[in-house]
């Protein structure tokens, strides 16, 4: 079966621009997570969705970051006024429920010039 997919795989943008990163979770998984991974570090939590609602957005670094999951499946992470410090790999994960194993997608590598 298909795993978690993320598009694009790579995104290069200029400082100040707006970007959207997309995540397609495993079919039937109700929980969806976004993490950010910098080089040489482990993933850091950003936001968690249970169904359509953001149940925990405590990891979002500031109000330039926003995520939606309008139909309880696909999610989009949106970053406004990008900064060079936003450059990282953005990982999406999904799980059957909130206390089940999380399965990760391949990530989107974001580079802000």
């Amino acid at each position, binding site marked *: 079966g298909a795993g*978690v997919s993320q598009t694009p795989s790579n995104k290069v943008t200029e400082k100040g621009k707006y970007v959207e990163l997309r995540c397609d979770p495993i079919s039937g998984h109700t*929980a969806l*997570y976004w*993490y950010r991974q910098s080089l*040489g*570090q*482990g*993933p*850091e*939590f950003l936001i*968690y969705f*249970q169904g359509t609602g953001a*149940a*925990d957005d*405590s*990891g979002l670094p500031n109000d330039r970051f926003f995520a939606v999951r309008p139909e309880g499946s696909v999610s989009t992470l949106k970053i406004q006024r990008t900064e060079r410090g936003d450059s990282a790999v953005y*990982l999406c*994960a999904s799980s059957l429920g*909130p*206390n089940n*194993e*999380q*399965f*990760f*997608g*391949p*990530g989107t590598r974001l580079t802000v010039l």
Partner: protein
Amino acid sequence: EDQVTQSPEALRLQEGESSSLNCSYTVSGLRGLFWYRQDPGKGPEFLFTLYSAGEEKEKERLKATLTKKESFLHITAPKPEDSATYLCAVQAILSGAGAQKLVFGQGTRLTINP
């Protein structure tokens, strides 16, 4: 605050040379400890979940164990294809927000030379 520390940061072994990776954690209450494998340019791949001290799980050449303060990932007679970064993460027992996130260590970069 929940914390996870992995050691060593990097480990280089010869093929067939067994060793262990360490994951030390502090968490208010442990719901689960997770091990993932990550290859360069890929997302983390789930390996194991451990829930309570004394629990052990095995998969091929890997065995994960758990105590109240740390977890070990034992690698027996490794092969070059076991080369990867191994990540440890904890999930805390909480009510409400924060209960589902994973807190990761920085990983151990393992290289197995033929």
